């Protein structure tokens, strides 16, 4: 009986607690990592949409072929819609946490859209405009770098609390295991003394 008590106290109970706590920590860890990867991919996808929108925009504002112009116009509008919905989701993610990033993104987005579908965009007769093309590329580059910088800052912010969380979890696990082993040891000692 004493041997069984000792076995449960020193190996099985701490092992069970360790397994449960490790499972909980791993599940949280996995969820956190999946969410972080998803947000990074979303940010990268939005940056890619901006690049595609710029490529379509440059083709549109440099186009001399009237027949191709309408096709390029449709492409620009579709990419513009993708960029807007991507940026709205990223702004929603920042809202409440870092309002200054929301304002910055809104201003850069407005500048970019102004260049992408502004100026002579949509006119029946379009003359290729090199200056407008340059303006579009410049503004897109500012928006893309702001998105990359924002994601870097977000990753920097989430990494430290996440690691601290894990360290606290491991500390709790250690205390619980030591506590159980100590408690069972005391019980076994008292039983022997009797």
């Amino acid at each position: 009986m004493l041997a069984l008590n000792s076995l449960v106290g020193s190996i099985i109970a701490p092992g069970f607690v360790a397994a449960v706590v490790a499972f909980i920590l791993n599940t949280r860890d996995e969820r956190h990592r999946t969410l972080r990867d998803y947000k990074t991919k979303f940010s990268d996808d939005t940056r890619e949409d901006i690049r595609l929108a710029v490529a379509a925009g440059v083709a549109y504002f440099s186009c001399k072929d009237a027949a191709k112009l309408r096709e390029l116009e449709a492409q620009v509008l579709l990419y513009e819609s993708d960029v807007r919905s991507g940026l709205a989701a990223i702004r929603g993610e920042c809202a409440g946490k870092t309002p200054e990033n929301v304002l910055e993104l809104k201003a850069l987005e407005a500048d970019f859209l102004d260049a992408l579908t502004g100026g002579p965009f949509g006119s029946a007769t379009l003359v290729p405009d090199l200056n407008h093309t340059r303006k579009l590329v410049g503004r897109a580059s500012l928006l893309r770098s702001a998105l990359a910088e924002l994601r870097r800052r977000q990753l920097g912010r989430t990494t430290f609390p996440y690691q601290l969380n894990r360290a606290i979890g491991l500390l709790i696990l250690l205390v619980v295991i030591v506590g159980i082993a100590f408690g069972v040891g005391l019980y076994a000692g008292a039983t022997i003394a009797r």
Partner: protein
Amino acid sequence: VGSAVVTRFAELSIARDFSPFPGGRQPEDGPFSGARFRDEVLRPLLSNGGHVVINLDGVAGLPSSFWEEVFGGMIRKQIAKIEDIGTRIRLRTSEPELEVYIPMAYRYAKDVECSNRI
């Protein structure tokens, strides 16, 4: 005892009352151009000191050339003054991806106002 003056705002939905796919500046650019929206839809509502709330919900997008022609054009054609934007003319949307067009509208009007002063 003061008396409260209740201002009635006309509700205007671009998607419902004009088109869900607006685009272009001038009437020759397409059937749903900025100039048409400004002159045929917005102007009558603003005449005689009228107030209007423009709802952006439901549009596929508002190409900047269209939007500039509406708000920049309103200042250029003296249909409204810069101080009317935000007071007599208000913009509203419940769609986060259309929110960006609200500050753009004010900016277009302001840009024209600034260039007029110079």
